[in-house]
């Protein structure tokens, strides 16, 4: 018989049973009441017994041996011939782990785990396992075979084993099928939006019919005032009657169709919503599936760090989408580890502080509207914002002065920086501070948020806010350059209108003041990688999206705000895996697409690119002094853009507002290179170049002209005037500019 199809089922079933064993053993430890203790023991026994039976059926003897040994000991405990003390509980838990290792990849069983089996069986001090399997080794009282799982009525365990698993009202469904269903439901929702647009068209049709009707009436009145011969009148009346009838029929039809569509839409809207909810519900799993592993984790961690900890879990029945659960499972484990390892103090330290020796870890989940909030709270030493500030400065993350300006919340946010760890000793358990940034990254990916609150001496609370479902998300549609882009609405803190004259430069970087704070101003199109000017170069004022990235505030300039709506987000697929800032595409009502941008990833990616620039400036540093570049442009934005590009590449940059200003500066100071616009008031770029060559006799000074005049004629004029390079704005890109400059200055590699 081909058993392969049973292996996967065995793995799943065994994992479930091990979870039951684990839970039951932990519950017994903390349980005084005899009845409850008894029922937990029964649960553990049943779980182990099932594992043994299935393992034997499929011929996995090592698993059966371990399960048998566990069953034997649990049997003795049930008969009160043995006491379940802590060391014994440890051994039993380890036995469960061993089965887990053996069963994880059946029919393959890892060699180290196999090697551990005999030793473990020995250690349990169980009677030597009895190989015959036709008869149960001993018939200990076990659970009722199937229907009432709560009742612990004694009956033969073998019955439960051999009876086929029936009467379960569930089926296992392949995850990809669910995903497909999920996708289709989303598709339907988008189509529904489109139908809504058709409804709008019908309204417009009705309006047109109304206007026509009024025009016909007016025409009739007009005609009634005129004189006609009786025959003419008769003919006119006949025509008018036909027209009136047709008009009435049309109005009636338009009205009826519009009403019908409205009713249909309303009904379908409800159906689509219901379907969405049902599909969503299918994918929902109780958070218990990940909470369940936490008591064991806390117990083991506390033991490993010589601490005492109790764990309280609330809201295990809160349900979340399975994809969401997958993504928060690791972060949650990490946060709980942190709470025990960093949060809780050693027992003596706690007692000295007037706290009970055992620390309390509280984990709770609750759903609130469209979100689920998970809190991990400890009553430990808390996080000292002062120490976080000091540590961040030590690590070179920010300047001391800047650190002292951060408020408490902002300082605490620093722990989410990559590479940050305040543990005095790097412990095996909490790792090296690689965790918190991953926690945040995972949550951001889900459109969620993470927040830390802490009071020194009293404890720390980490709150995760997670959207309940991923079926549709709210997105903001914006125009950036020539393209429509979507951004998750949850990441946007607000909208700000920026006028050109409000832009202030700090260290060459454009910023804007907002609520008495300095906000960095970036162009979304440019960050995404489009070759277009900043929106402020094209419009006198432009909207900007306010974001909080790390502890900095950022405003992303866009050309226009288009819409905010619910959209189904679809992945772009592995071909774009190297572009984490592109988190997918959203489908618009007409079937078109808009790329969904994760602005936080985008800015962090941009920051990494900017961090790469100092390498370039380092190579220039061989030169005794940075090259002096004069930037000439009457457009403030272009000027500042050029200035910031050149400054970050390590050049010493001076700006002039037009050709005349440039000539003045060139007379008083020496420059190594001039970058100039062409169209400028007073002295334009061509004239500037000619005068540099003739009047100032600077025949060697390199001049780069940057212009929107793309014609060959202009190019020729520029080169005739003596410019070394001519860059057309529409082809402008920062790298090519820097390359040209490097070449002209003789810095090329």
């Amino acid at each position: 018989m081909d058993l392969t199809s049973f292996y996967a089922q065995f793995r799943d079933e065994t994992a479930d049973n091990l979870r039951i064993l684990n839970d039951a053993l932990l519950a017994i430890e903390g349980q005084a009441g005899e009845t409850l203790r008894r029922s937990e023991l029964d649960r553990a026994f049943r779980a182990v017994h099932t594992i043994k039976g299935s393992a034997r059926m499929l011929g996995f003897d090592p698993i059966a041996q371990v399960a048998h040994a566990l069953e034997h000991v649990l049997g003795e405990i049930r008969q009160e011939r043995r006491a379940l003390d802590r060391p014994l509980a440890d051994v039993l838990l380890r036995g469960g782990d061993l089965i887990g290792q053996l069963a994880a990849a059946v029919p393959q069983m890892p060699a180290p785990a196999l090697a551990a089996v005999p030793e473990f069986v020995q250690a349990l001090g169980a009677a030597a396992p009895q190989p015959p399997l036709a008869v149960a080794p001993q018939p200990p009282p076990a659970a009722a075979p199937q229907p009432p799982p709560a009742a612990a009525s004694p009956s033969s365990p073998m019955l439960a084993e051999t009876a086929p698993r029936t009467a379960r009202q569930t089926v296992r469904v392949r995850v990809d099928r669910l995903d497909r269903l999920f996708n289709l439901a989303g598709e339907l929702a988008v189509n529904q939006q489109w139908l809504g647009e058709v409804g709008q068209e019908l309204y417009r049709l009705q309006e047109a019919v109304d206007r026509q009707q009024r025009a016909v009436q007016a025409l009739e009145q007009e005609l009634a005032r005129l004189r006609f011969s009786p025959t003419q009148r008769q003919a006119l009346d006949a025509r008018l009657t036909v027209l009136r009838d047709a008009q009435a029929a049309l109005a009636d039809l338009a009205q009826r169709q519009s009403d019908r569509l409205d009713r249909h839409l309303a009904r379908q809207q409800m159906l689509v919503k219901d379907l969405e909810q049902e599909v969503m519900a299918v994918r929902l799993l109780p958070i218990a599936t990940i909470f369940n592993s936490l008591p064991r984790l806390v117990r083991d961690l506390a033991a490993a760090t010589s601490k005492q900890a109790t764990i309280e879990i609330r809201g295990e029945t809160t349900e979340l989408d399975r994809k969401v659960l997958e993504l928060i499972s690791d972060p949650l484990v990490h946060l709980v580890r942190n709470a025990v390892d960093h949060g809780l103090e050693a027992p003596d330290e706690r007692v000295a502080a007037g706290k009970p020796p055992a620390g309390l870890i509280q984990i709770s989940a609750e759903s609130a509207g469209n979100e689920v909030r998970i809190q991990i709270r400890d009553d430990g030493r808390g996080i000292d914002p002062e120490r976080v500030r000091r540590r961040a400065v030590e690590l070179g993350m920010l300047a001391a002065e800047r650190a002292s300006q951060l408020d408490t919340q902002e300082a605490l946010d620093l722990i989410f920086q990559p590479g940050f760890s305040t543990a005095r000793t790097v412990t095996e358990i909490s790792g090296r501070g690689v965790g918190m940034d991953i926690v945040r990254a995972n949550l951001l990916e889900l459109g969620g948020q993470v927040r830390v609150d802490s009071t020194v001496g009293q404890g720390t609370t980490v709150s995760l806010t997670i959207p309940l479902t991923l079926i549709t998300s709210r997105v903001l549609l914006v125009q950036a350059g020539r393209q429509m882009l979507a951004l998750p609405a949850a990441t946007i803190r607000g909208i700000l209108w920026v006028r050109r004259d409000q832009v202030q430069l700090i260290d060459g970087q454009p910023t804007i003041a907002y609520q008495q704070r300095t906000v960095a101003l970036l162009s979304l199109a440019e960050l995404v990688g489009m070759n277009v000017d900043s929106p402020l170069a094209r419009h006198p004022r432009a909207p900007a999206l306010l974001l909080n990235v790390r502890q900095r505030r950022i405003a992303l300039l866009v050309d226009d705000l288009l819409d905010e709506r619910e959209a189904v987000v679809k992945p772009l697929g592995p071909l774009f895996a190297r572009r984490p800032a592109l988190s997918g595409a959203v489908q618009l009502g007409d079937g078109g697409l808009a790329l969904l941008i994760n602005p936080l990833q985008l800015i962090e990616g941009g920051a990494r690119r900017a961090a790469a620039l100092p390498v370039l400036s380092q190579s220039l540093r061989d030169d005794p002094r940075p090259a002096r570049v004069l930037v000439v442009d009457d457009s403030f934005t272009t000027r500042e853009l050029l200035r910031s590009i050149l400054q970050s590449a390590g050049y010493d940059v001076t700006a002039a507002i037009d050709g005349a200003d440039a000539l003045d500066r060139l007379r008083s100071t020496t420059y190594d290179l001039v970058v100039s616009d062409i169209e400028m008031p007073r002295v334009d770029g061509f004239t500037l170049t000619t005068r540099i060559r003739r009047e100032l006799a600077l025949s060697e000074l390199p001049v780069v002209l940057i212009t929107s005049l793309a014609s060959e004629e202009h190019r020729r004029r520029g080169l005739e005037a003596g410019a070394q390079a001519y860059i057309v704005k529409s082809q402008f890109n920062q790298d090519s500019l820097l390359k040209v400059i490097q070449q002209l200055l003789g810095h090329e590699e």
Partner: protein
Amino acid sequence: MQSSPAQPVSTTEYLMFRVATERYALASTPVREIMRWRAPTPVPGAPPLLPGVINQRGQILAVIDLRLLLGLAAAAPDRATRLIWLHHGDIDAALLVDAVDDLIPIDAAHLEPPPANLTGPAQRVIHALFRHHDQPVAMLDPAALFALVQEAA
């Protein structure tokens, strides 16, 4: 396509198409669908051989310009231009080709190794040749093709 009765031969269906003046073929198994050309939504910052993405009944497909991938000059789409939905591994993409010709069964015995003088991308993505009406047709390997695109992306 004659099969000797003694030895059963494996016959596979191939989709033949044209890129510039050259003829290519893909095994039909990974081909999901053939679509008329439509303007893709550009992905800023992506290389020219990935001109954008399209939405085909809810699935997002990256468009791969085969001309550019094979090192040929770009061309404007016309009435014959087609997109071939290719599914391989966990990747779904639409290959931009100049025209789709035919679906023909080919017997594995008629496949020849690619010519030794291929260079560059062609060397990596062409895994066999066969002759059809005395014209050479190059067979593309979807896995190698996607690997090449992933390197460029």
